């Protein structure tokens, strides 16, 4: 008797199902690859490139055409002048060419040796242009009867110039200068410190405040729904609105908080909350806690409400006090969600850019790694250095992602 073997490999139905699945996933995969994977690879590439903001505008040859010598009547001689220049002051353009259409009735005299005329089509090979170089190309012409009769204009057809410029982004030139610029600067230690402070305290703070808020709303009372909605406001409102509100609120000259503190006699002179070290870093962290506690609140509340009442009743019978019940029942039950929240919030606080950028612009010791990307790339116009910081961020995130895959995806049941 032969043993019953399960069929090996995939049957046609399974293959069809898999094909359909990939078909359904294709738009997602393609779009994510185009907007996430490709840019990530590009960041690595750019970080080894000496590229600045100015390099994004490649040098182009520019041309202006004019008719000189003032020919007014048939038979008059004149010149067509092409003034060609390199738009960039320091980068060369290779193999510049010019083509133009000469109107009917214009007789062309002696041609420049670099030019050729085929029918009415003029084409010139002008060679290489250094940075800042400009040149006048003159073409002696005689205007005939036909030209004036047709009412044509020399400039009716715009001349076309082309040229090849060396683009730093695609050239074979590489450098480690970007990384040196990032690591060498004394600011980098500051940046790492600000990032760590912001991430650690922002994460813990948001979770603790969220836990407290959840404890407040973890029993039924009238108006609970309204309060729950209200507590979500900071998270739901656009970051730009709340960040500017905070800046207005804490303004040293016209801010209400300073006015309040002075009036209540807490401080003598107004405090520049977002403008001085180390207060600014504390303030952006407080903002982070304020804006993201609703998220932990929502999660923790949902988890709390799924803890059965029997356990508390039993503990009550055994004489456990309210704090003991919290310590020995609620907290252990919440540990799972708290650790997931911690990991998630940690990563996202680390990644946060908008909040600090809007509150302080990264000044007064609040420049985190993500803000540094922007500062290097756009404020200092050194895109390469910005990309180098981005690579540093990415490496840190690789470490996080190991934790993420190990713990979060298990908790989330993926």
């Amino acid at each position: 008797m032969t043993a019953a073997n399960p069929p090996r490999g995939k049957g046609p139905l399974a293959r069809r199902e898999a094909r359909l699945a990939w078909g359904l996933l294709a738009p997602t995969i393609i779009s994510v690859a185009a907007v996430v994977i490709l840019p990530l690879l590009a960041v690595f590439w750019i970080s080894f490139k000496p590229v600045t903001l100015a390099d994004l505008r490649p040098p182009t040859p520019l041309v202006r055409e004019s008719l000189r010598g003032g020919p007014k009547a048939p038979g008059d001689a004149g010149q067509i002048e092409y003034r060609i220049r390199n738009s960039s002051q320091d980068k060369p353009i290779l193999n510049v060419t010019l083509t133009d259409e000469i109107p009917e009735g214009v007789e062309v005299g002696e041609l420049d040796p670099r030019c050729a005329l085929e029918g009415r089509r003029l084409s010139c090979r002008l060679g290489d242009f250094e940075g800042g170089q400009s040149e006048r190309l003159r073409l002696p012409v005689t205007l005939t009867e036909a030209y004036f009769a047709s009412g044509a204009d020399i400039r009716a057809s715009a001349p076309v110039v082309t040229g090849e410029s060396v683009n730093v982004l695609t050239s074979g030139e590489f450098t480690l200068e970007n990384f040196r610029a990032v690591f060498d600067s004394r600011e980098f230690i500051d940046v790492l410190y600000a990032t760590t402070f912001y991430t650690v305290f922002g994460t813990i703070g948001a979770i603790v405040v969220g836990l407290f808020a959840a404890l407040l709303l973890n029993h039924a009372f009238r108006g609970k729904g309204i309060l729950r909605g209200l507590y979500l406001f900071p998270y739901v409102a656009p970051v730009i609105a709340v960040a500017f509100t905070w800046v207005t609120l804490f303004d040293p000259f016209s801010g209400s908080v300073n006015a309040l503190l002075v009036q209540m006699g807490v401080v003598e002179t107004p405090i520049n909350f977002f403008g001085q070290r180390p207060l600014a870093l504390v303030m952006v962290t407080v903002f982070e806690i304020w804006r993201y506690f609703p998220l932990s609140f929502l999660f923790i509340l949902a988890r709390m409400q799924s803890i059965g009442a029997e356990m508390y009743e039993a503990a009550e019978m055994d004489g456990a006090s309210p704090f003991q019940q919290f310590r020995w029942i609620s907290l252990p039950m919440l540990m799972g969600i708290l650790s997931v929240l911690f990991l998630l919030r940690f990563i996202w606080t680390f990644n946060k850019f908008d909040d600090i950028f809007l509150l302080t612009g990264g000044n007064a010791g609040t420049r985190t790694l993500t803000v540094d990307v922007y500062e290097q790339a756009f404020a200092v116009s050194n895109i390469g250095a910005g990309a180098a910081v981005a690579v540093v961020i990415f490496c840190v995130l690789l470490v996080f992602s190991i934790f993420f895959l190990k713990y979060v995806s298990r908790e989330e049941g993926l």
Partner: protein
Amino acid sequence: MRALRFGFVAGPLIGVFWVMVAATTVAVVMSFATGGAFRPSLTLAAVWGALLWPASWREAGRAGPAVAAALMAAATLAGLGPVVIGNGVGTGARAVAALGLGAGAALPLGWMLAGLGRGALSRHAFEAAVIRFLTATGHVIFAAIVAIPFYVMVMTSLKSQQALLANPLDFSLDLDKGWGVFRSYVELFRDFNFGRYLWTSFYVSVLTVIITLLVSIPGAYAVARLRFTGRTLFSRSILLIYMVPMIVLALPIYIAFSMTGLRNTISGLILIYPVTTIPVALYMLQGYFRGLPAEVEEAGLMDGLTRLQVIWKITLPLSLPALASVALYVFMIAWNEFLLAFMLLDDPAKFTLTRGVAMLNSSEVPRQHLMAGAVIATVPIMLLFLGLERFMTKGLTAGSVKG
């Protein structure tokens, strides 16, 4: 801790702390409401807190706290309460502050200390009283930190620059101006093109929602229902995308858009926005699809529907609530998006609302315009949120895997 567990220790102590909280709250609220000089006196608050303790005794009866509240209000009017009121404050505001303080300090304290007694306390009774104190304080603090910024945002937008600089605390409205209080809004819509920004933000968000749903529904269905190699890996790694900070991606996107001429175009924005929301939408939807009974779909397959017909005729109608949540959540993300709009748009004719508000943050534009812009950006999303809170909260919970 043990030394605290006596009624004559815990009662006055909680009283002291609570009156301090109440006095500070009343002073802050009245300052913000009237701009007048209200100032909590912590010494007087401590004295009053201890004095209020007897009002909670059983002998004082139910009327105890009410009498205490009346006494405290009267004392405050006489200048002996825990809130010191400046000379310039009008009688009406004084009366409101005194009544608010009396009621806000004495009545909740009566509730906190109810049944506490004067002698030794059980741990249970003691902690219950502490928790009641913490609960009341917590509600006050949370209400303050959430409400004050939004209150200041709205009120600042209705004031004039001079009034703000003269007294930053005075948020009382000058109602004589009538419709004139809305001047900032009128100017934003008339001179700063905000009507157009609203419309741009709206259609960009709606298009983002549509494209996101079109792409993520089939993807989510595939991950939730179909068997293929790499399914687990895919569903795990899709969320890894949110570990990459947007600013890291924005840099190459900026370069690519600069070189291809997509920068400064709305279509460029619409190319990018959906991709930032597709993974989270896919994640939310696949979770929901998994929860639907597969038998219904299998019945449909048996009856001769193709997979795509099953999705269209069975799965989607069953998941309308989830679709609403996802759509709202995606709409919120697109509406609030700032970084990409800020980096990719330079032309004021093409701004989205958030980019338009960012433009107002300059020294040449008065503060109240900036705040009015913030209100315009916030109100639509708040209305959506309040109107559809159930869906929105579900979306927030399910979508919180995105930062």
